[in-house]
């Protein structure tokens, strides 16, 4: 089921067309192009809405992605590293986004800081192969997870605000 919030988020992210993984040589390139275009759109839409919440870059092949993401809670900005690999099965399986900084701090996380995505994300992704890409994974996977977990973790005192986090 696609709820209202999801639909709205999705409307800002263009859908992908090419179904190809990193092994698919030519097609992967095409796919990667689409991924970038999608991300650009998403990010610029976020910026326009004053809702910029992450930075991402990838290796040359576009199989490893890393960057930062942040949450503003009670007028304080909490920043976390984010990284994930594109598995060979991509785009059939969703990328496993990890927040290594929070590894071991919350139960909703696999070893290595991989976030435990909600139950309905995976079937949603499965239904939308190959239309969903990295942007969707960020928007529908990491975004909601952060929105739910971080205020909780802050309240528990697991994470605290660090002044002057290096930009």
């Amino acid at each position, binding site marked *: 089921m696609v709820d209202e919030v999801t639909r709205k988020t999705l409307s800002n992210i263009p859908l992908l067309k090419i179904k190809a993984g990193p092994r698919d040589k*030519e097609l992967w*390139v*095409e796919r*990667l*192009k689409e991924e*970038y*275009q999608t*991300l*650009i759109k998403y*990010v*610029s839409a976020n*910026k*326009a*809405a*004053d*809702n*910029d919440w992450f*930075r*991402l*870059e*990838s290796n*040359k092949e*576009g199989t490893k992605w890393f960057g930062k993401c942040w949450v503003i809670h009670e007028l304080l900005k909490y920043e976390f590293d984010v990284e994930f690999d594109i598995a060979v099965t991509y785009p059939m399986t969703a990328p496993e986004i990890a927040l290594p900084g929070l590894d071991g701090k919350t139960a909703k996380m696999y070893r290595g800081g991989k976030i435990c995505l909600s139950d309905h994300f995976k079937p949603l992704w499965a239904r939308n192969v190959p239309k969903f890409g990295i942007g969707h994974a960020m928007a529908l996977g990491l975004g909601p997870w952060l929105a739910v977990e971080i205020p909780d973790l802050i309240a528990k005192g697991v994470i605290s605000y660090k002044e002057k986090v290096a930009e």
Partner: protein
Amino acid sequence: MADWEEVKRLAADFQKVQLSSTTQKLSERNCIEIVSWLLEKKMIDLIFTSDGKEYLTPSQLVQDIKSELYVNGGRINLVDLAKLIGVDLAHINAHINDVLKGQKDIHSVLGQLIDSSYITKIAGEINEKLIQQGQINVSKLTIQYDLPAEFLQQTIEKNLDKLIFGKQDKNDPRIFFTESFIARCKARIRGALGGLTRPTPVAAILAQIDITEKLFFSLFDQTSMYGNLTSRLAGAQYIPNVYARSQNEWVQNFYKQNGYVEFDALIRIGISDYKNYIKKQFANEKILQLNSCVVNQSILDRIEADIDECISSKSYVDLQTNLPSVFNENDIKLVLDKVLTNQKLQQTLVLNCFVISKAFIEKISKDCDELVKEKAKKSVESGKYQQYQTSLQVSHKSLKFDDVEEKVDKREERRKKAAGGKTGGGTQGRETKTKSTKKPGRTTTKQVDDFEEKKVVLNILTEEDLTSAIQMPLEEEGLDELMQPIIDYLLPKLNEQGIEIAGNIYATTIADRTANRRQTHNEIQNKLNVMVGDIRLYEKGLKLLPADCQAQLYKYLLKTHCTDVVTEILNYVAAEQNLNPVNENFNNDQRLKFINDLPQEYKTPLANLTKTLSGQSVDDFMAAVEEGLAACSMIIKKIDKKKDRTTILAHKHELLEKLNSCTDVALILHLAILVIFTTATQNMLHASGRHLSSLLTFLKQYLSEEEYSEFMLYYDFVTLMLAAGSESENAKEKLKEKYPNIVKIANEYKRPGAEK
């Protein structure tokens, strides 16, 4: 490898996009946060709209309210305002004061805002309406404009003569009208009132001219010169001056012409409060208020003159005909009260509506004088007067005894009287009746009447007597309708007079009687002596007869001669005691009763005497007589034997005389036998016809054979005749033939001894 280049370029673009600065824009959420923070800190004052999505500053709200008011034509409901502006009603209410502050032309009325433009508008409307209708009521406007009366009142008053051209009703500030309307109404009222000639209820007038009651009454004073209102209330009547004037004229004319005014007539012409009216109308006149009318002095003078004349001419006046016909009896009474002075009152008699001079009545009563005298005499002679006197005394006495002897006595007395009244002859009974049916109170003797009615009434003159006596003269005068009252008036007087006359007559007789009393006493004594002597002789004769006859003859003797003696004694006693004289046919009971009423000195001897009458023995009677006479202070003379002979002889001669003059055949036999007995035995005998047969048998020894048989035959015929059988006529004839013979025998009979 162009693809990879492209990828690289895209990656760079991506980085570039990510690094480009985010636009400095507050999200909606931030704005709300900021605003709420500011509100929290009370740094700004804002009003939320009802959907919560917008804020307003108070000054904006005030502005909005003003503009909405303007858009809505100067009048708007606060609830509507809240809806239109989209804020809560509470905010509107909170800021209404700000709106009103400094804005004198805006009013908040009943949850509505109204500004001066609207007021001007409705003032204009009201003015138009006022011009159209002529009159406007604030209460009606409140319904139309749905505004409070007070506000409208203020509005109108403020705009009076500025925007609204009219006048305020002085009596009712809520009503406004135009001059023209008032003029119109006045004209209408004037027209209506001018047209009326008779009293009319105001309601009827209002219905006709379609003007409200209030208006009518307030305008009436300004318009009315034609009449008056009975009151200022709803049920008032309008009385036109014309009508009142004609009424007054009529009353005055009538009064001047006739000298009186009848209340009924006043009511008829519509003056219901005639008493006040008359007071007003005839304030200067000398009038007399009567029961049904007022009357002026001239009529009274006339009546007075009439009465004077009546007195001087010794006649009568019929006021009913002399006064106007409307006068009722009460009026006449009142007039008489006024006119009749004390002096006149003594000279006149007022009966019904007639004033009769006393002289006239006297004339009539004089006519009756003869009659009264005659009647009085009669009543004395018949003893009625004496009876009346005694019963009067008895009743007086019983009255005196009342205190001592309780009422039983009185009741008994009355019962006796009642019994006496019943038995005492028809005339008296009827008289008592007529007396009681008579209306009491007419005459001055009322009290006496009442008193006498209870007691004893003696009417010398009966109503019928008087009626017949005065009918003629009264009819000649045309006064027959006054017959009854005149009789009522005269009868007691004449009766009194009659009783007086009777009293005089009686007194003279009594005087005679007392003068003769001694003589009477002697007379009676002698008479009684003679009677007692006779009885003794009779008894002596009786004793000659056989014993079986004697008892019967004793009884007969007691019943006849002895009873006579007793009656005589009682009569004497009655006269002596001034009691009712004893009747001849007194029976034993009546006698006893009479004796019971006597004083003690008489009571016992007389009671004993009376008792012997019903006994068997003449000897007892003789003893009792002696005793009784002693009580009456009389003496029985000593027996004189020489005198007996002469008495017997006289008796015989008397009998013979009777016999010779007698024609009754049966009596002849009786007398003949008695004569023979007397002659034969030289004794007197008193016997009834019943004893004749036994006497005959006794006389057989003294008679010759033929004489005896002649008597027996005659006796048989007599019995035959008295038996009234078929042969009685025949026997009578026979007796007529024979009686001279019997007479002859009796006359010629000689005592056998003497012959020898």
